[in-house]
């Protein structure tokens, strides 16, 4: 059973713009799937639908066997009650382009916040895990600093630790390095590559081709709300089949 199954998902925004146009995608345990594509191709929207930050217009999303949304043959989109939605989406860990660390909490508190409030972990239990995660992202020394006192790269590493603290079944990265200066993207991609080696299941949306190539076990190219091509990264980069992917890659040479 895949950890994440996206079946025939459509998303149309107000004004009739089709962001997702019949997208189907399965992510198996231990896979690192990277999605590339130009801005507006729908890749971020797909991630946000998986995490219920956006609601689908039609289709089905199943996370770890739990149905987040399904659509009847008559076209009625069915979401479970809010509480059940929250239980299901908590199985995903989201990392945002702009980090979105809680500004009023220290780094340590950012990491222990949801495990204590949402999972009901004890303070001690969550602290122990938080310190382990701070070590993983290499920021143990910043535990008691506020996000505002950290660089962008450091904030993003804390954000990764915060998402991991919830023990998600799958990590979702929404352009994790796009808001960073080029010279510090490595400190973030380094952490993510480490997670790939640990076989943590993930779905990454990125504009960083070098990172996509090194991190992904499978690469997906999206354009105009559709999956155009997918396969092992080497195959897509070295032998792209569709003219659109060829054109897209040539713009990155």
């Amino acid at each position, binding site marked *: 059973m895949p950890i994440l199954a996206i079946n025939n998902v459509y998303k149309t925004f107000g004004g009739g713009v089709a962001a997702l146009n019949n997208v189907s995608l399965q992510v198996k345990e231990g896979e690192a799937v990277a999605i590339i594509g130009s801005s507006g191709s729908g890749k971020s929207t797909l991630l946000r639908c998986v995490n219920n*930050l956006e609601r689908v217009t039609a289709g089905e999303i199943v996370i770890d066997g739990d149905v987040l949304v399904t659509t009847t043959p008559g076209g009625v989109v069915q979401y479970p009650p809010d509480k059940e939605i929250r239980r299901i*989406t908590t199985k*995903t860990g989201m990392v*945002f382009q702009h980090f979105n660390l809680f500004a009023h909490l220290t780094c340590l508190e950012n990491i222990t*916040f949801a495990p204590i409030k*949402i999972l009901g972990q004890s303070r001690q239990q969550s602290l122990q895990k938080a310190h382990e995660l701070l070590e993983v992202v290499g920021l143990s020394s910043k535990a008691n*600093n506020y996000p*505002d*006192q950290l660089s962008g790269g450091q904030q993003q590493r804390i954000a990764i630790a915060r998402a991991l603290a919830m023990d998600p079944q799958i990590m979702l990265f929404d352009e994790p390095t796009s808001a960073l200066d080029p010279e510090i993207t490595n400190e973030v991609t380094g952490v993510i590559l480490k997670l790939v080696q640990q076989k943590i299941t993930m779905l990454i949306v990125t504009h960083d081709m070098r990172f996509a190539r090194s991190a992904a076990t499978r690469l997906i190219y999206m354009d105009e709300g559709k999956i155009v091509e997918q396969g092992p990264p080497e195959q897509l980069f070295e032998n792209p089949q569709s003219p659109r992917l060829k054109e897209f890659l040539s713009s990155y040479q």
Partner: protein
Amino acid sequence: MDFGYIQTILPALLQGTVQTLKIFVFTLLFSLPLGLPIAFGTMSRIAPIKLLSKAYVWVFRGTPLMLQIFFFYYYIPIFTPIKIDRLPAAVFTFVLNYAAYFAEIYRAGIQSVGRGQREAAKSLGFSYWQTMRMVVIPQAIRQIIPPVSNEVITLIKDTALVYVIGVPELMKAARDANNRDVNPMAYLIAAIIYLLLTFVFTLLSQWLEKRYSRHERTDAV
């Protein structure tokens, strides 16, 4: 300076100050919390609630406070069976009026907290109200303190308006003394008392502001 004269008017002025503080404290006690549901009302997705809340804010901010004081004091006993005293009528009006201002301050403060903070909380499994209580409001407080302090200081001075319905507060005590003795000393002392009160609340708001800005950058990295 005629200290003998000051001594004769001071007791009445201090009694007036007690009344002023009563209006002030009771108004804050009720209007500060009342502003919150109205603020959420103005941001509600349910159209009638939103419309009603916005209309409330519009009416109470859009008409003179003095008019509202007259209206509630003279017309509540006419249109309802409720008999209302001067002081409670004044406090009632102030509560409704200040809640409208506080609601707008709260709304602006809440909306100043970025969408990213709410999305992060949602993605971690927080419900809407949990997100408000644990993420948005703690951050909004920092934004809210300065404008709330402003209103609080305005309120100290606005209490003087209730002399129009004869509440024996500081302003009325000063006016009575002046009218009786044709001596501006009462006004001068009243001014000093108002200044002392506003000074205390200015200090308090500065302390609160400092307390709630802990998370802001203190040293560059």
